[in-house]
C-alpha cells in the first residue's frame, strides 16, 4: 500500500474515532446539564426538546455553560483540525510542480517562480504514520478540553473562569498555529542551504540565546503561581522555556555532532581505554560548563521539568555520540551527585517539596504549596478501572491543573485504562515515527532527529511519571496533549524539523 493511502486511511479512522468521542462528550454534557429538567419529562415518558428552544438567561450558570457548549461547535473545529493536518501532509507529500524545476534551471526566474522555488520536494524517509498519530493526539487533547471546560467553568467562581470559557477554542487555534509553524519550519529546513546553516551553526550561539531568553524572563516576566516563567506578548503569556528548549536541543545536537566528527577523525577510539577522562575533559567539559551555566537561570526559576529533561537529553546524546556506556554512566553519577546535593542543601525548596511529595503523596509537605494535586490525580487514576466511569460522568476537574499536566488523569478516569493506554501507545507510535524518519535520513539529520525523539520522549516520560507518582512531579507540559500555546507550537516546530529530515540528494 502506498504511503499516501496509508496516511489517508489513518486520517479517516482517527476522524471517526474523534467524532465519536466528541459526540459522546457533548451528549454527556447536555444530558448532565439538562438532567434535572428531564426527570419530570422522562417520568412521563415524554421526549424532551432539549436545548434548541430555550432562550438563554445569563444569570444562570448552567445556561452559561450550555451556551459555551453550543458555541464550541466541535464539528467545525474537528474539520478545521483535519484540514490543517491534511494541508500539512499535502505540503510534505506533494511533488514539486513543474514551475519549480523550471525556476531552478532558468537563468532569470520570475517572482512566482522564485517563491515557488522554495517548494520542497517530498520527503521519502518520512514515516507515513507520524502526522495521523499527531492528529489523533491533538484531537484527544481537544476532546478532553471540550469535556473539561464546562466542568471547570461550573466549579470555579465566575471571576476566575474567564480562561476556562475559551480554553477549547484557543487550543484549536494553538494547534492550527502549530501546524502553520511546522509547515514553515519544514519548508525552510528543506532548503539545503538553511539546513547547512543549522548544521554549521556554532553550538554556543543557541546556548547563549537560551540563557539570554531565560534571563529576560526572570527580569521582565509575568509571575504566575509564585513562578516567573512567562513573558507577556500582546494579550498572551508565552512560556519562554518552550522556545529555550529548542535552542538547548540545537546546542546539544550541534555540539555533540561536531565533537563526534572531530573525535572520529583524530581517532580517539584507538586509545580510549587509556585516556577516557582526558578526552571527556577536553571535549565535553566546555559544553558541560555552558550547559550548566544555561541551566542555572532555570534552577533560579525553580522550573525543574526542563532541567530534568535537559539532564536526560545530555546523557542520552552523549551516549548516542560515543556509543559506549562509560560516558553516560559517568554523567549519570555526576547528575545524581548534583541532584542529591541540591536536595540535601535544601535549595531550592521546591525540589525538596517535590521529593517529599513523591515519598508520600498523601500528606502535604512544608513549603509554599499545600497541594493535594497529586493525591487528586491518584484518586482519578484509581477511579478509572477498565473502561472508565464514562465520558462526562467523572470528577477529573477536581484535579488542579487537569487541563495542563494532569490531562492524562482526565482521560484515564473517564475512558478508563483503554483510553490511557491508547494515549501511551500513540506516544510510542509517534516516537517510532520520528525514529524511522531519523534513521533513514542523512548523518546530521538523523542525529537531530534522534535528539528530537529524545526530547519529546523524555518530556512525555517525565510528566507521565510525575503525574502517576512514579518519579517526582515536575511542571512540564505534555507535548501535543496539554493545554497551552507555547507548548503546542514548540512541539510542532520540532515536528516541522522531523518532517524536513531527509537523505541528502546525491550528486
Amino acid at each position: 500500500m502506498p504511503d499516501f493511502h496509508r496516511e489517508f486511511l489513518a486520517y479517516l479512522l482517527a476522524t471517526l474515532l474523534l467524532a465519536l468521542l466528541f459526540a459522546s462528550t457533548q451528549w454527556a454534557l447536555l444530558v448532565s446539564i439538562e438532567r434535572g429538567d428531564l426527570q419530570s419529562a422522562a417520568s412521563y415518558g415524554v421526549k424532551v426538546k432539549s436545548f434548541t428552544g430555550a432562550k438563554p438567561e445569563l444569570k444562570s450558570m448552567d445556561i452559561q455553560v450550555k451556551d459555551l457548549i453550543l458555541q464550541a461547535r466541535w464539528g467545525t473545529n474537528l474539520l478545521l483540525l483535519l484540514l490543517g493536518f491534511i494541508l500539512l501532509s499535502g505540503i510534505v507529500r506533494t511533488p514539486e510542480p513543474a514551475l519549480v524545476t523550471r525556476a531552478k534551471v532558468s537563468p532569470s526566474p520570475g517572482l512566482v517562480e522564485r517563491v515557488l522555488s522554495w517548494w520542497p520536494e517530498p520527503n521519502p524517509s518520512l514515516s507515513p504514520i507520524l502526522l495521523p498519530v499527531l492528529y489523533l493526539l491533538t484531537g484527544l487533547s481537544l476532546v478532553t478540553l471540550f469535556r473539561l471546560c464546562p466542568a471547570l467553568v461550573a466549579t470555579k467562581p465566575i471571576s476566575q473562569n474567564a480562561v476556562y470559557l475559551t480554553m477549547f477554542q484557543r487550543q484549536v487555534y494553538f494547534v492550527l498555529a502549530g501546524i502553520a509553524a511546522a509547515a514553515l519550519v519544514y519548508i525552510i529546513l528543506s532548503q539545503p542551504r538553511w539546513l547547512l546553516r543549522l548544521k554549521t551553526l556554532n553550538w554556543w550561539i543557541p546556548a547563549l540565546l537560551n540563557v539570554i531568553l531565560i534571563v529576560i524572563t526572570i527580569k521582565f516576566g509575568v509571575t504566575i503561581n509564585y513562578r516567573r516563567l512567562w513573558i507577556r506578548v500582546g494579550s498572551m503569556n508565552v512560556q519562554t522555556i518552550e522556545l529555550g528548549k529548542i535552542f538547548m536541543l540545537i546546542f546539544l545536537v550541534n555540539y555533540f555532532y561536531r565533537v563526534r566528527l572531530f573525535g572520529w577523525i583524530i581517532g580517539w577510539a584507538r586509545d580510549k581505554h587509556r585516556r577516557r577522562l582526558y578526552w571527556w575533559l577536553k571535549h565535553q567539559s566546555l559544553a558541560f560548563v555552558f550547559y550548566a551555566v544555561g541551566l542555572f537561570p532555570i534552577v533560579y526559576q525553580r522550573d525543574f521539568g526542563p532541567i530534568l529533561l535537559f539532564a536526560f537529553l545530555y546523557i542520552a546524546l552523549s551516549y548516542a555520540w560515543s556509543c559506549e556506556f562509560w560516558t553516560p554512566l559517568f554523567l549519570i553519577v555526576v547528575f545524581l551527585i548534583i541532584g542529591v546535593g541540591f536536595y540535601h542543601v535544601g535549595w531550592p525548596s521546591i525540589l525538596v517539596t517535590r521529593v517529599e511529595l513523591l515519598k508520600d503523596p498523601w500528606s502535604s509537605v512544608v513549603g509554599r504549596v499545600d497541594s493535594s494535586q497529586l493525591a487528586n490525580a491518584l484518586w482519578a487514576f484509581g477511579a478509572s478501572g477498565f473502561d472508565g466511569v464514562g465520558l462526562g460522568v467523572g470528577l477529573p476537574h477536581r484535579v488542579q491543573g487537569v487541563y495542563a499536566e494532569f490531562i492524562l488523569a482526565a482521560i484515564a478516569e473517564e475512558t478508563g485504562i483503554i483510553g490511557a493506554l491508547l494515549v501511551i501507545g500513540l506516544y510510542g507510535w509517534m516516537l517510532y515515527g520520528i525514529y524511522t524518519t531519523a534513521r533513514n535520513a542523512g548523518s546530521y539529520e538523523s542525529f537531530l532527529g534522534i535528539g528530537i525523539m529524545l526530547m519529546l520522549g523524555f518530556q512525555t516520560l517525565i510528566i507521565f511519571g510525575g503525574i502517576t507518582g512514579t518519579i517526582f512531579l515536575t511542571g512540564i507540559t505534555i507535548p501535543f496533549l496539554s493545554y497551552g500555546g507555547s507548548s503546542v507550537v514548540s512541539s510542532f516546530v520540532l515536528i516541522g524539523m522531523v518532517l524536513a529530515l531527509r537523505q541528502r540528494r546525491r550528486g
Partner: protein
Amino acid sequence: MRTQFQTSSLRLFLILCGGLVIIAGRLVMLAFDAKLETKTFEQTNRVMRVKEAIAKGVIVCKRNEVAINWSLIEQLFPEEASAYRKDIEAASQAGALSCSAKPMVIVPPDVDVTELPLPSLKQELKKGNIYLEREAIKQKEISDPALRNAVAKAVTAGVLVRGVEFEESTFTESNPRLRQDRGLLYRGNIFDRNGKLLAETSGEGASRVRRRYPLSEKTFHILGYVGHPADPSASEGLEAVLAPIFRQDDTRYEALFKLDKGLFTRLLSLFKGEIVIPDLKKPPNFTLTIDQDLTELAWKLFEPYNHGALVCLEIPTGEVLAVVSKPSMNPESDMATWRKALDDRAREQRFLRRVWKQRYFPGSSFKIITSMIALDEQVIPNQALDFSINLTGEFRPCDYGKAIKGRKPGKLRLDEALAISDNEFFARLAVEHLACPRLFTALGSRGFYEGFSLLPEELRQLDSKGYFTVVPNQLTSKGEQICPAKGFDDCMLARSGIGQQDVQVTPLWMAFVVSAIANGGSAPLPYLVKRAVEYDEAAQPTNMKEYRRTENRTLMAPQTAAALRDMMSLVTKSFTRRTANNQTYSVYGTASRAFNGVTYQVAGKTGTAETGHKTNHTWFVCFGPLPQPRYAMAIVVENLPENSAGGRISAPIARGLFDYLVTNSTTEPAIDFQTQGPDLPTGAD
C-alpha cells in the same frame, strides 16, 4: 560510525519505549488498586500553620472562648498572611479550635523572652506543676524560687496563657468521588411528619431546575443545601448525608455515558436534537419527624431575637418536632447573599447547628440536673421534696471571687428553691451535700460527656462529616480527673452546681433530660428521620423503612423523675405554702408570669446564664402538658441585655408553642406504632 550510531539510536528508542511501558504498567496498577479510593490526604502544611499561629499567640483563649488576633497575622507572617488567615478561618469554622484545660507557653512577637527559661517552664507544665484554675494560671511544688518568679513574669508577659486545642483531622481531604453527587436528577423529595413538603426538586423549562425548600431558612440546619451559586458541587446537612442513597440507583444512568452502550441511540438523538433518556427509576422519598406548622410557629415566636436555639421533642418516641437555630440561611438565596454568608461564616455562624452543635452555659436550668443527681444518688434521702437547707443569704465557699447570693436567709425547701431558682441553695447543695467528684462521676455515668447521632443506624455511617452528631457536653475541667487534688475547689463546684462557669451543654441534651424526667426516668434518644420510601420503575412504592428508636436511655430512677416532675411543675405556678408555724407565704415560680392563666399544666425550669460579656443567655426547658406530658422543649435565646431572664424571654416562647400544641394535639394519637399503616404522603410527586 554509521552503524554504531544506528545501534545507539535504536537502543535509545527502546529505552524510551521501556519508559512508556513502565508508565503503562503503573497506570494499570493504579486503575485496579482498590485501596486508592478510600485514601485520604492530610494537609500537614495547614495543620502546621495553625499550630504555629497558636504557638505565636495569634489564636488565644479569652474568657472561655477562642479569640483570633487577625492583625497579628499580617505582622508575624507578612508573606503568607492570606494562607494563614485562610487556614485559621477554616479551622475555626470547622469548630476545630477550642480552649484547653491546660496552660501553654506561647511566644508573642512583641515580648522579649530571652530572660525567661522557656524549656524549664515547659517541663514544669508537663509535670503539671503549672495548672489552670478558674482561667487563672497557678503554680505549685516549684522549689526553685527563680523559676517561681519566672512563672509569674511569664504570666504577666502573656507568655504563659490558657492553651488552645486544635483538632488536626479538620484538614483532611478525602476522595471527592466518594461523595460525588449526580446533581438533582436523583434526589427524592423530603416531607415533614404530616406529609408536607420540606424539599423537592422542581422546575420548568430548560436549566431552571432547582432544589426548592418551602420553609427556606427554617429547615436549613436540618436539610442543608445541595449546591450554591458559588460552588454548585457543595452540599451539607441531610442533603449531603442522603446523597449516596439517592445515588444507589444511578448506575444505569452512568452506563448511558459509557462508550459501548447505547451508542446508536445517542448519535441518533444528537442528530435529531432531542435527548431521550430511557426509563429512570423514581428516587426514594424521606419523611422527617419535623412538624412543619410547629416549626413555622416556633420561628414566628422567635422572630424578635437574632440568635438562639429551640428544640421541641415528642417525649414517648424521641422524635424531634421542631428546630430553630438562628441566625440561619436561605439555601435558595442568590449569589451575592451566599458569598456574603460564606465570607461571614466565622462571624455570623449562620451555618452552625446550634441545637446540637453549640454548647451553652446552662445557667439556672442546670439546677434540675444538680437536683437530679442529688435525688438519684440518695444524697437527699427518699426523694424528699421537703429537704431543706439553712441559708444565710450569701455563700462564700472559698476566699476569693464574688459570693453567691441567695434570695433571703432562712430555711428553704428543695422544691421551693427550684421554683424561685435560688442560687445559694443549689450552690450549697453542690458543695455541702454533693461532694466534689460525685457530681461529675454521676454525670459521666449518665452519658453526660458522650455525643450521639440524631440519625438512625443505617444513615449514621453516611454522615461522615458528623452533621447530625450531637456534640458532647462539657465541663471545662473534667470533674473526676481534676477534682480532688488539682485545684478544683469548692468555688468552682458551687458555680458548676448552678450551671455557671464550668458546665456547657447543648440545648438538645437539655431537652432530652427533661423528656427523660417526664417519661419516668428514661426516654428514647432524639432522632430526625422517620421513614424512607423506595419506588420501583413504575413509580409504585415498593419498600418502606421505618426508622425508630426502640431503646430508652435511662437517666434516673422513676422516683427521682416523679419528684423532679413535681418540683418542676411549681416553676410555672404561683402558690401559697404554710410554714411550720402555720403562717402562709406565697411562692412565685420563675416562669409563673409567662404561664399565667393557661388551661393546661406545664413543668419547666428557667435559666439565665451570664456569658461574661455583659450579656445573658436565657434558657427555658420544659415538658407538658401534665399529667401525661408529650412534648419536651429547650429554648435558648442568646446575647440579651444583662437584666433579661429566662422567665421573661424564653418561657413565653414555650407558652406560645404549648398553646398551639394543646389545641392541635387531639388529632393524632400519642404513640401508636402498630396500627399506624404506611401513610404514604399524597401529592408526593
